[in-house]
């Protein structure tokens, strides 16, 4: 027993040594999907003589929740990843300090949802329905062009979506239907979807890898609520080189919900100057051009060039669904509750 105890103490000691004290550090709280190339971040660290630590704190919602719960004694200096579906919660809770970065001039106004510049737009992307091209070809099926098409009998049982209470893609899709049918009409539409054999699962993983017929999982539904960039990701992460993506997106009017992701300086930071530099860095060209192939989102900075995979394989909706963040903030919980009552009963 003593041996075990000794072993345990030794392991703890080794673990302790592994996390030795570091010099001037900036902590960035973000969601699990955050990725950046090491040379891009190394450049920033070198120029500013700082070590950047990333705190990956679950999905966008839980990262924000952690920032809110710790706002009296912030654990990080910068929070990146709050999107327009959670923006008003972040602003209402007052987690950010305002910062009018000079680089905002290179970002189109349509993305600047906070006039006080507490939350600055970094990137955007669309949540769209993906479909398996081969399935539609083999079955000689027309591609649905609108939300209304999805309720037609030829598409019975073909769509899988995610529960908006447990999944951000599910929430985005719900919001798209609200943008199209309004707060009074969306439940009627969902009732018709439900009657047409809609399949609902709790998370994107299950929807894409278990239910979607176009993934490795070979599921039963040829349409899945995913991202507009997913067809490009299928090409980038194909097992062998593909000339064409096996999937594509439905980009009809209001059918895609546009997510905009924001960065902000956390209130109470002791590293205000460094935090400002980091926000500038995130909005500047090097980081912005690194976003697409790592996080598969579009850079907000209009000067940033897009990689070939994006121009070739991503369809951009002409009219993505949009709702004011305040409206989302005020009604999100009740919209989700009403949806749960209708769909899950």
């Amino acid at each position, binding site marked *: 027993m003593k041996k075990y*105890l000794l072993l*345990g103490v030794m392991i703890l000691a080794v673990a302790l040594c592994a996390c030795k004290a570091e010099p001037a550090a900036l902590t960035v709280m973000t969601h*699990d999907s955050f990725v950046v190339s090491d040379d891009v971040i190394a450049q920033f660290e070198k120029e500013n003589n700082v070590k950047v630590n990333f705190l*990956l704190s679950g999905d966008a919602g839980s990262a924000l*929740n952690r920032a809110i719960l710790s706002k009296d004694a912030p654990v990080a200096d910068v929070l990146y990843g709050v999107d327009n579906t959670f923006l008003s919660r972040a602003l209402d809770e007052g987690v950010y300090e305002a910062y009018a970065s000079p680089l905002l001039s290179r970002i189109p106004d349509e993305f600047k949802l906070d006039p006080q510049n507490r939350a600055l737009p970094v990137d955007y992307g669309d949540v769209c329905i993906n479909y398996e091209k081969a399935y539609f070809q083999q079955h000689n099926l027309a591609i649905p062009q609108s939300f209304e098409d999805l309720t037609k009998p030829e598409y019975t049982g073909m769509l899988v979506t995610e529960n908006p209470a447990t999944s951000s893609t599910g929430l985005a899709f719900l919001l798209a239907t609200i943008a199209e049918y309004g707060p009074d009409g969306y439940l009627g539409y969902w009732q018709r979807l439900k009657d047409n054999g809609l399949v609902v*699962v709790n998370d994107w993983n299950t929807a894409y*890898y278990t239910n979607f017929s176009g993934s490795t*999982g070979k599921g039963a539904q040829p349409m899945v609520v995913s991202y507009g960039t997913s067809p490009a990701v299928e090409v980038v992460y194909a*097992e062998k080189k593909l000339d064409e993506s096996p999937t594509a997106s439905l980009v009809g009017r209001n059918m895609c919900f546009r997510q905009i992701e924001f960065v902000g300086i956390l209130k109470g930071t002791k590293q205000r100057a460094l935090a400002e530099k980091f926000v500038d860095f995130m909005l500047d060209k090097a980081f912005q051009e690194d976003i697409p192939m790592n996080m598969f989102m579009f850079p907000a900075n209009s000067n940033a060039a897009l990689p070939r995979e994006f121009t070739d394989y991503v369809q951009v909706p002409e009219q993505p669904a949009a709702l004011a963040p305040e409206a989302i903030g005020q009604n999100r919980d009740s919209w989700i509750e009403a949806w749960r009552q209708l769909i*899950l009963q």
Partner: protein
Amino acid sequence: MNRRRAGRPALWLLPLAFLLVFYFYPLGRVLALSFSQWVSKGLAGWNWAVVRDAVGFTLYQAALSTLLTVLLGLPAAYLFARFQFRGKEFLRVATTLPFILPTVVVAAGFNALIGPRGWLNLLLMGAFHLAQPPIAIQNTLAAILLAHVFYNLSIVIRTVAAAWEGIDARLENAARTLGASPFRVLHEVTLPLLRPAILSALLLVFLFDFTSFGVILMMGGPQFTTLEVEIYIQTMQFLNLPLAGLLALIQLAFCMLITGTLIGTGRSMDVPLMPRVRQENLRGARGFTEKIFVVGLSAFLIILLVLPLLALTAQAFFIQSEAGGWHFSLTFFRQLFLNPRSSIFYVPPITALRNSLLYALAASSLALVLGMLVALGASSNSRLNRWLDWLVMLPLGTSAVTFGLALFLAFGMSVSAPRWYPLLIPLAHALIALPFVLRLIEPALRSIPPNLKWAAATLGASPRRVWREVELPIIRRAAATAFVYAFAISLGEFGATSFLTRPDIPTLPIAVYRYLSLPGTLNFGQAMAMAVVLLVVCAASMFLVDRLQLSFNIKEETRKHA
């Protein structure tokens, strides 16, 4: 004896302190926060019907899952306790492997097997010319039950088999000689002797099913709401801490009630037994019925537990071409070692493996030491000790979301905290593993006839020596099983880890999830490859522990005979 009893507080003081600091203090923090928000903002979203339904379904599915698991587990425990057959070691390890697998991976395994285009469905459709897949259990209660049995069967097998091996077969033989039917022997001799072990297994399985999260979420689907799922939604989506805290309290109250009842029942059933030499009761199957039993049950266990593992392993090695054929490839494993986008968070599989193993080793050693201390301290029947025995079980019945959030609130609220997160991971794992260690060691310890210890003491052995030479050798088997479990729990733990992990020090399950967060054949394949690495490493460590234990026993035997 008096001297020992006086020394006992020293034994359980350390585990109690550990529990206070790393469980009750954080939990208190999160509940205090919920309560203060309740006072300031009020309780929004309270819906009695929803809560009642959630409580009802949580209990219903947990009871049903537990019942199924125990009913299937008892014959399997008999198989392992009484028979020697080819491939037994393999089967023993294979039954424990599901335990370590993240739910996404298990879901993928089941999907490859019984999904709409899974092997079994294709096979059946081909054989019987069916147009629709005959097995369709996605998003049904059946899927939840199947997954729970798959995950927890080994708890029953290992816990009960360990006790069954210790029962003197001569007791059963004597009853048979006296004319009792096999059923009567089972009913009046074997089962009463096994009851403490069965209750232990029952309690562990129930707590797991009661707080199960991933299985309900991914296999069950949105129409099934348990307390755990509701706590998650209220916390993560609505940030409604008053309601989440209230639900967590309700969950905890039920967990306390059930744990208290089962522990209380278990204690009154102890029968001291002369310890038997390991493997003395083992024999080959004799006669037609026994052979059918051994072969049939092994086949059943392989279908239930090994086939899904094989299915996911196949997905790591075989790639489906567009024409529909499959070809063997090591691409996914090779890709694990590459970082094509030079991501700062890329971690080579070997490093993730090392992290996981280090955490698991630290967590299981800690859990074993603490568990031993509680078991020794609590084996006397004083009221305080019974309380402690009961408190230790609670982390297993606590929502992982609540516990993760609690650890964050208690220890994560300073800028330097992230540096310490890696230390908290093995501590959290040890808390979750502790109930297992205790439930395995305690019955073994209490089954030791006191006269053995008295005899040793009369012969002049000090309490320490009695412990070392009488108690420890007897409970070694239970301790080894406990260690394996603690190790497996730590290797597979995801919920609390995801709250504490640092991107540069991920564990294997965290790495698996990371690959599955993007579409693409390559990402899926790499996740499966990573899961296979996890499986192989875990299988190897379990073989090692089983072997060490065996060789130790053989050494003991030869020493005795010499």
